[in-house]
């Protein structure tokens, strides 16, 4: 949790980008270091599979860094641009996998894949329940709805940024997010959501 992907250091990137465009490899490396984890995690949120997420993140970063000249700072922040590329690559990845009807959780036994860290003892009981439900529920969403959830609630994008990233209108973002949230709540079933229980316990 040391690196917070939710801070948007929009303007600080410009000098780095400029230097990288001019051929400064160190500047490019700095951008890479800065964005690799958050790109990987965004991809993981979108795809639910670590190996796929690694591939997509590597691809997206490679593309972005090799095409920095295409980035338009006057139109969006660098992270929004990078998110856009990551989302496109994740879509690509999904297209190529041809797994339209089988949930990734079932297919890959994701239940074990996403958590290789042992949580603190006090949280163990609650955690297993919650996580399984949340990841399972995410897997039930269509890719577009899943994108909406991850972009809004994980990367903390505004609706406007989401419309740029997802390549759709603001109204489409609104309705997708609404559908997604409704569907998630339906899937999780409010009374069964352990986090609400936790909240009341505290």
């Amino acid at each position: 949790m040391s690196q917070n992907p939710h801070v948007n250091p929009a303007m600080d990137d410009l000098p780095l980008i400029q230097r990288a465009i001019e051929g400064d490899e160190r500047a490019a490396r700095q951008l890479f270091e800065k964005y690799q984890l958050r790109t990987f995690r965004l991809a993981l949120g979108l795809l639910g599979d670590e190996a796929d997420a690694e591939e997509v993140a590597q691809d997206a970063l490679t593309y972005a860094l090799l095409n920095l000249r295409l980035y338009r700072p006057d139109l969006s922040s660098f992270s929004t641009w990078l998110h856009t590329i990551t989302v496109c690559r994740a879509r690509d990845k999904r297209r190529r996998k041809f797994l339209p009807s089988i949930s990734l959780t079932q297919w890959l036994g994701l239940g074990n894949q996403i958590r290789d860290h042992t949580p603190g003892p006090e949280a163990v009981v609650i955690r297993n329940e919650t996580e399984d439900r949340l990841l399972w529920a995410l897997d039930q969403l269509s890719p577009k709805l899943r994108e909406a959830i991850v972009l809004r609630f994980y990367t903390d994008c505004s609706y406007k940024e989401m419309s740029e990233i997802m390549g759709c209108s603001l109204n489409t973002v609104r309705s997708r997010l609404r559908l997604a949230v409704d569907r998630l709540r339906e899937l999780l079933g409010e009374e069964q959501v352990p986090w609400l229980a936790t909240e009341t316990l505290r």
Partner: protein
Amino acid sequence: MAGDGNTPLKTSDDHPDDLVLQEYALGQSEAEQAAEVGQHIAQCARCRARVEEWRQFGERLAADLRRDLDRVTPAEPLEFSRIARQWRVPRRRTSPATIWRLSFPALLLGLLLWMAFWLVSGRRTAALRALDLLEDYDGPPVVLAAVTDRGLVVVRLVPGEVRLEQRLSYVTHPAGLQLAPDGEWLAFTQDRILHILGTRAGGAHLEIPLAGLAGWAWSPDGSALAYTDGAGQLWLFERHTLSSRLLVPASESAWGKLAWNPDGTQIAYVTARPLPPVAGGATHQSLWRVDVLSGLRVELARRLPEAGALLSAEAWLASGEGLLAWETSPADGENLATLYQVDVSGHLLTALDGKVPVQGENLSWPLGPQARALVWDGRNLVIWHLQEQKKQPLAGQLAWPQTVDWSADGAWLAAVLAGAPPGQGVILFALEASTLRAISLPADATERAIFCGGPEHLFVIRQPQGRETAEVWLVSLVERAAPRRLMSSVALPEAGPYNGWRWDDVFALRVLD
């Protein structure tokens, strides 16, 4: 905990819509609406409860997503070195000899794969089967290149014969596929490498590293490929020598797209200082032409620098005395271009009335033969006959064309209309008679893009319901033959920023005479 509003303070008609409440709870309402909702929930317990519910749900969802995702790190660290290797490509190259190399490994690999196909599984190979290629092809002779789930394939179709010529499995995300006019060569980029590929099985394959944003165009006779390399240089790759020679040096800052004149003696290009896009600033842009044989350069017209505006050369008029260029600017939201007619001798840029949508580095509605252009004049779709300087309104009320292609003689144009029901997306417009003709296709797929295939055929790219790949269909315009599916498993391109598609990133087609 969810209050269902059994005892509202106000009548239920007065409650804001759930969508509005949700947006408010997530902090995404516009200021004005936020104020309204704020006032409302101050007095309405039902809506207050709902907002609170949304807010809590959102916060917990965000917290849980972060908890689940933020503690995962890649099993194998991501590698900067994979990128750095390409970073070390020298930006300014001096000798043409260093800029191209025959890619023997790729060639060998391709050859081996190809041989393996024919040896292992006979003529009907797995790859062919996966593409569902039509066996008894009866359309015009064409070469097509397409990105599929098995990589880039090049297929040659002549009546009675369908041949898979090339398959490059590692080419999964190319850009700007351009077939030479004779279909013998294909150019595209992937990861900052310009690939020039002979389209016959076992043909040559050259790779040219680029320094950045590049543009390329085959000469009218297909014997040469002109390209800018992202470092300000303009090169000419010639097929008979399989090598490039420098036409415009880096000091000139040539960049972006190129346009050949009809007889292939001149290339129009744009220079920009600094090379765009640099931090959105204003660049000094000029339109130039270079004589291919002598290398003589002449400035044609100049643009005043305007922040974010980008100029591209598009096509020459048949006379060679003028050309067409276009410009995007932030004022048009970057997705609509202003067309300019350029008077070569008068050094004048004249803006035409009307705009054309842009997708990536290309016009979404390409210019037609004889300098015809489909434009949006703010109210109507209009066809500009630039040679004759006259405008022709498009008959009837037409939905927004998503992709457009022209017949080779410019007599008609074919369009796929955005939002049309499956099977009903294709229309033809005959210019002389000013008539529209709708083309009906089976209703199981949505039309996405269109390519004219000689005077009697259309190639239509269609996306079957619920699928994330596309199919290529052949439609005969004269016979009563039913439309036929030619091929499947074609990748859909990435959507551009305005929900358009960049078809030239996944598909190219050339009709052979």
